[in-house]
């Protein structure tokens, strides 16, 4: 590790993030072709796009499970616990009331992680219902397509906020380095995540 830097994300954590991102963007692109009339017309081949969208979704979830199983399982579980637990400081952060030092994740990052995980489950369930509902009325609900569409809008809103903070906002975008290379500057970590025990 370069001097002056601390490790924020392990290889397994980064793999989970980037596999998730890759899958999401693939599904977003193929999904928009199915959803937006202008794109549907421009691309055509609906059956084929529908097929790769479905199998892309199955692959998205499956590949994340594979990364979790083959990767550093205990480390990932530890991270999940970190994201799960909210301390007094997280409540302060959320309410904007005298936030002091954040741990490795602040409350916004914890909520983002929980929502992303929930959206993935809901995308999967509603997607499977759409797919099998086309073949069997037992799996057909009038609102499945509404749920799948609603998830698209909700996850796009999260994604835009995430991209703004990780690519544009001057004081937070250094975090991107942590997700790409694994390490962040020590002084940045101290400023933004003062209660994070970096093990240094």
């Amino acid at each position, binding site marked *: 590790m370069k001097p002056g830097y601390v490790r924020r994300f392990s290889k397994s954590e980064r793999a989970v993030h980037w596999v998730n991102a890759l899958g999401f963007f693939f599904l977003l692109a193929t999904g928009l072709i199915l959803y937006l009339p202008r794109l549907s017309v421009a691309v055509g081949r609906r059956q084929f796009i529908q097929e790769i969208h479905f199998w892309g979704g199955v692959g998205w979830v499956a590949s994340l499970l594979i990364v979790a199983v083959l990767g550093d399982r205990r480390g990932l579980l530890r991270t999940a616990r970190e994201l799960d637990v909210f301390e007094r400081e997280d409540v302060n952060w959320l309410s904007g009331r005298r936030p002091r030092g954040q741990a490795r994740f602040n409350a916004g990052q914890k909520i983002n992680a929980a929502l992303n995980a929930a959206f993935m489950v809901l995308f999967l369930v509603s997607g499977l219902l759409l797919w099998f509902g086309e073949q069997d009325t037992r799996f057909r609900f009038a609102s499945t397509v*509404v749920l799948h569409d609603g998830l698209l809008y909700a996850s796009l809103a999260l994604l835009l906020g995430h991209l703004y903070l990780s690519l544009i906002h001057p004081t937070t975008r250094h975090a991107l380095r942590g997700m790409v290379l694994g390490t962040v500057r020590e002084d940045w970590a101290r400023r933004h995540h003062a209660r994070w025990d970096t093990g240094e």
Partner: protein
Amino acid sequence: MDDLTPGSAGEPVAPRRIGRGVFLGTVVGGLSSLWWGQAVWGGVSKAVSPVASVLGLGSGWRIYTVAASMPVFEPRTWRLKIGGMVARPQELSYHELRALPQARQTSVFHCVTGWTVNGVEWRGVRFKDLLAAAKPLPGAHALEFVSAEKPYVDYLTLEQAMLPDVMLAWEMGGQPILQEHGAPVRVVIPEMYGYKNVKWVAEVNLVRRPEVGYWEQYGYDNDAWVGRSNGYGL
């Protein structure tokens, strides 16, 4: 002064597992929307649809096709064939078709997958007027709609086709039907799900009785009444 540092003297704070609460609450709320989602979304989309249409976002339509590419409408060479069990088979040009008695309506469009478009303006011809010159034979009780999009085909009984707001439309929203909506002509039957509203109609054939249409061969109902077929409202 309260000390907000966790675990410090005076106010120890028990960490709380809120993350899983957010996760589970979202999953449960999302799944429950399978029962209430459509009703709520209908209200929301009515409220935002003027804004959405200005932004060029979701008109509410989705374009479903079964072939790799959409049929292309060529006005000079296009003909609508009316055949099967008729005394005088017809071949109408686009111009001749539009010279038939015209009907207009504003109706709702329901897709069997759950989306709906309200207030669609159509202009076209009622089937009574379309079929008059061909003179259907007494044994014919159904219409076969052959789409230019192969191999799409579907059927309506004559009784269904003669319902007061059923038509073969060539105009939608005040302009000629766009390619993706079935240019130049499509069936409009608001009482039934979209798969009965055949796009890119190339032939209308009088037949003895309805046969199995494109989606029906995959288990969809022959009579696609909105709210009373395909597993809904039964």
